[in-house]
């Protein structure tokens, strides 16, 4: 009844039943899993609490990743952002939170993959920063997570969320689209606006390759979460200002999948291309992997 494969179907359902995206998602999940509404909401609330917990832990100054390439950056930026910065407080907060989650992840700590571990900083970074600075309720924030899930689900069904299959556009690109739609929803934008924000966010990161240094989810992953979080916020602002995506979200997803298929395996998580084969990266890889 409430199952959908495409954004166009989801929007149609929102329109026909006068529901918003999060409500359709809950109904679809109730149907599919047989769980109650309360169980589903409760589970999503739990995910949100774990996200906040990863941010809290990741802001500590003495995190060290397994590969030793990152750690402490979230802390630096959050201190800096309190007084200074070109980007404004909320943006820097979202970025430092995104960094925090990725640093905890790289230290083999507990995170919520959203949609993957490599790209796990973007959605919580954006939602938690907006919740704090705009004083949104927890209920609103959890609702936004359902909206993010809707975007990710459409991509999972029609394309891929895996860097090994589609490059980083499938991970950070997807997460940025999810966060953009979530942000629009938090601000009270319409379902169409959510899709416009998601489409523009994914287009902005189309073609992004997956090139982790030494194969570790550290560089460029962590800072790519940072820029993808900012991309999400810009796209949300554009959509809320009434700017539309010329290409509908479903078509952008198809395009992303086709680009991923054309990407050389060297640029899909194998650490054989891009940043991973720069002299600095190779030198480091030699040192730690042997």
């Amino acid at each position, binding site marked *: 009844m409430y199952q959908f494969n495409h954004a166009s179907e989801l929007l149609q359902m929102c329109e026909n039943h006068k529901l918003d995206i999060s409500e359709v*998602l809950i109904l*679809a*999940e109730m149907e*599919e*899993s*047989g769980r109650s509404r309360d169980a589903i909401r409760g*589970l*999503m609330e739990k*995910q949100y609490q*774990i996200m906040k917990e990863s941010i809290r832990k990741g802001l500590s100054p003495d995190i060290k*990743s*397994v*590969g030793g390439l990152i750690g402490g950056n979230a802390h630096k930026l959050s201190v800096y952002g309190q007084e200074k910065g070109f980007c404004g407080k909320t943006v820097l907060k979202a970025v430092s939170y995104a960094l925090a989650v990725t640093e*905890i*992840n*790289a*230290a*083999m*700590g*507990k*995170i*919520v*993959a*959203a*949609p*993957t*571990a*490599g790209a796990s900083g973007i*959605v919580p970074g954006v939602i938690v920063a907006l919740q704090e600075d705009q004083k949104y309720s927890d209920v609103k924030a959890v609702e936004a*997570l*359902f909206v*993010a*899930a*809707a975007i*990710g*689900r459409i991509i*999972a*069904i*029609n394309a*891929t*969320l*895996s*860097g*090994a*299959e589609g490059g980083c556009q499938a991970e950070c690109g997807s997460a940025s689209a*999810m966060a953009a739609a979530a942000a629009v929803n938090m601000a009270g934008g319409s379902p169409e606006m959510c899709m416009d924000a998601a489409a523009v966010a994914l287009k902005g990161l189309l073609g992004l390759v997956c090139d*982790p240094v*030494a*194969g*570790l*989810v*550290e560089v460029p992953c962590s800072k790519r979460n940072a820029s993808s979080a900012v991309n999400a916020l810009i796209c949300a602002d554009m959509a809320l200002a009434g700017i539309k995506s010329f290409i509908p979200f479903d078509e952008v997803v198809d395009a992303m999948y086709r680009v991923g298929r054309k990407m050389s*395996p060297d640029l*899909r*998580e*194998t*650490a*054989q291309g891009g940043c991973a084969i720069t002299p600095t990266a190779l030198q480091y890889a030699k040192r*730690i*992997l042997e």
Partner: protein
Amino acid sequence: MINTAVSIFEIIGPVMVGPSSSHTAGAARIGNIARRICARDIKRVDFYLHGSFARTYKGHGTGKALLGGILGMSASDERIRDSYQLARAAGIDFEFHTVDLGDAHPNTVKIIMQATDGETFEVTGSSIGGGKVVITSINDMVVEFTGQYPTIITNHLDKPGVVAHVTSMLSSNGINIAFLKVFRQARGSQASMVIETDQEVGNDVLAELGALPSMSRIVFIDTDKQLE
């Protein structure tokens, strides 16, 4: 591209220990499923890593996660970090090898487990992104299931009536079959059914299934408890 119904908690989730959903969480899940297929004490385990798993397993903790799964840890278990030590303490030998499995999914591992009773089990699985996995072979028999549903795997003699027997027994116990696939090596030889159900399957039902004539073995894999 495997497009089964996608739960939103695979998108906002799983909750897992980092750093990589495909290389760490998925690996832990494959290990965990393999352990349940073996279903006995393991004395040695060999992991044959293919593709991206082979190239990048060290830095992702893929080895720690696979082994953690073999030890019964879920993908969100923070002890995964220490699984090498824990396996040694439990007296389990383990070794990692790299291998070329042809055009298998880039994140594929073949796990060979030697049980303390001398039996050997082989399980091959792929981590297909976002922590999701698909098991593609058990003891050289081609299978396909994801572990997203409670799953019953049978080993039985390929004879008329066995499948009907099993399905009617399940339905009389109020268990609905979501997916059913039958695999066999040759006509009249050993065969296998992979039954993915909508409900958890109780021990009494499993015992009843195991007692059917022609049935040599039943394995039950319940769903990942971290979502409960």
